[in-house]
């Protein structure tokens, strides 16, 4: 029942995506906050695109726009050949909706506390309609089994489960209609270390078995390394580096990526480099040039006035930084 997908054609194409939020009351103090600015990327069938950034980087906003939870302010999103932005976007989204799903950060908030596990997992099925009672029950058991939970859990309520188990249930719901693409928004950030490893392994096993593609949003570069094929690093709403996994970790080009990697606490005893100074700027008064400029150790004059564009510095490796303009 799955549509055939060509492995060489991206299932997701995002071009110049933009999202603005109006902030402040009407009139005085009203401003526009650009949460996502000019983001372009593809997701190929069966791959995981990791999206990394700190708070305010716009990573969650991108994820929410991809599944239609937030409308885009500009730019284009194409899912499975359907353009879900623009005037005909709603119709197009309805046609591909069954192929998309979303896994949330907080497994406690992601389930209606008054519903049974079977009804939570079967919600996408119930919304789609047309399933017999038997088929629905069988599918729920199958899904529970798929995420490593006992089928006996179907009649229970969410409050009876631990965080790690809840996240498995949320994943089971996401798989209900056999989607092709799942946005995981900080899907393991709320879990303890030992649960986190279990859930990450589960997501990867499912990818192997079902041929899923993920957009994996996280703030933790180590987690992203474990799951991703390619990685986009976001800073202040813009993609500053986009590359394959090994290139990003072995040869990070953007000063921000380098700083992020250096800042990860590592479970080994020893001294380390001083961290990058400052914090993410408010996007209400974004600097004229490069957004990182005030914090960047390598900034020069041009960085203050001119925003760098994302350009390819090696095959499949793009960076938005003036340091690489000469290349």
């Amino acid at each position: 029942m799955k549509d055939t997908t060509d492995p060489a054609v991206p299932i997701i194409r995002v071009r110049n995506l933009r999202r603005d939020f109006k902030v402040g009351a009407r009139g005085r103090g009203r401003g526009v906050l650009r949460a996502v600015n000019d983001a372009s990327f593809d997701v190929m069938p069966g791959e995981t695109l990791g999206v990394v950034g700190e708070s305010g980087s716009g990573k969650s906003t991108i994820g929410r726009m991809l599944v239609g939870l937030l409308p885009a302010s500009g730019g284009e999103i194409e899912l499975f050949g359907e353009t879900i932005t623009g005037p005909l976007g709603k119709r197009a989204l309805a046609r591909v909706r069954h192929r998309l799903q979303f896994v949330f950060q907080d497994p406690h908030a992601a389930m209606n506390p008054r519903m049974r596990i079977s009804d939570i997992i079967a919600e996408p099925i119930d919304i789609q309609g047309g399933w017999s009672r038997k088929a629905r029950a069988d599918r729920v058991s199958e899904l529970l089994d798929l995420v490593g939970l006992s089928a006996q859990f179907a009649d229970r309520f969410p409050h009876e489960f631990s965080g790690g188990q809840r996240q498995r249930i949320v994943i089971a719901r996401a798989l209900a209609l056999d989607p092709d693409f799942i946005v995981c928004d900080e899907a393991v950030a709320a879990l303890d270390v030992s649960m986190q490893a279990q859930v990450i392994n589960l997501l990867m096993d499912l990818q192997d078995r079902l041929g899923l593609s993920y957009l994996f949003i996280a703030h933790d570069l180590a987690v992203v390394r474990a799951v991703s094929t390619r990685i986009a690093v976001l800073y202040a709403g813009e993609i500053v580096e986009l590359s394959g996994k090994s290139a990003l970790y072995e040869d990070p080009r953007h000063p921000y990526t380098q700083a992020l990697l250096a800042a990860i606490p590592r479970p080994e005893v020893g001294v380390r480099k001083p961290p990058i100074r400052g914090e993410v700027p408010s996007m209400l008064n974004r600097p004229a040039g490069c957004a990182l400029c005030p914090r960047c150790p390598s900034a020069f004059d041009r960085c203050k006035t001119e925003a760098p564009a994302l350009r390819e510095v090696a095959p499949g490796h793009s960076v938005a930084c003036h340091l690489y303009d000469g290349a």
Partner: protein
Amino acid sequence: MLQVENLSVDFRVDSGWIRSVDEVSFALDAQSTLGIVGESGSGKSVTALSILRLHARRNTRMTGRIVFDGEDLLAMPERRLHEMRGRDIAMIFQDPMHSLNPVLTIGDQIGETLRIHQGLNRAAAEKAAAGLLDMVRIPDAKRRVTDFPHQLSGGMRQRVMIAMAIACRPRLLIADEPTTALDVTVQAQILDLLRDLREEIGMAVILISHDLGLVAEFAERVLVMYAGELVEDAPARNIFEAPAHPYSEGLLKAIPSADVDMHRLYAIPGRIPDPGDRPPGCNFAPRCALAQPACSATPPALDTLAPGHRIRCPVRLAAREPAA
């Protein structure tokens, strides 16, 4: 300087009492750093809050002794403890936004501690507050004292909390997940700051975190807690280079690395037992690869593996004994 002996903490729930911290003992030298690591429900934060007796009294039962400079904090009258809080022992928390009063300037809030404990007047307190903001590396400190908490970023707020905590130059600072709510780059800055301040002031620091990486970088000595019990107490180097308890080992292996590619992560099977439903023997036995039948029968004791290294695992203790 600090000696915790057989500390147990129970909380009242609907169905009776549940044990949150079970017979924890450890010692801390002046000017040293101690990390307490564990997952949620391990009792690490409860242990730390007990040192200042910050639990609601009505629903908590604490037994054991917490000796600070020869005095038992658990037996101490409330008034005496009040004097010590903030002056000798200070604490910072995970969420700097909810720990600050939104309607007072940060200068007022820092000054308050000084006025209470050192009897400074308003003007002197404000000046001292500016000095403290300078100490926690808040740029332009003199102007910042009149700011309100909402005007500061998360990292700046945590710096303000630290300034309040060190105002009286305490001899012990307890930091409970101080960087969990912060971004990675800011987290590194705060950790650097704590490290520097410890040397400047000469205080001991207890860092509580779920993040082993963070603790490894900061602490000289590390306690690993699991399901309310201390399972390993060792110098940081030992824990991270050669963890002896199977739980510490599993936890360490389960952390994804930013430095190497892994096809699959190591995962400890199962989950932490509920506090009301712990297994009869070793709490970790149901998840442990080394578990023997005896492990599920009797609760193991914390024992010395090597000088300065204690673990709660009879299997590993037995394996090392012939060598020792």
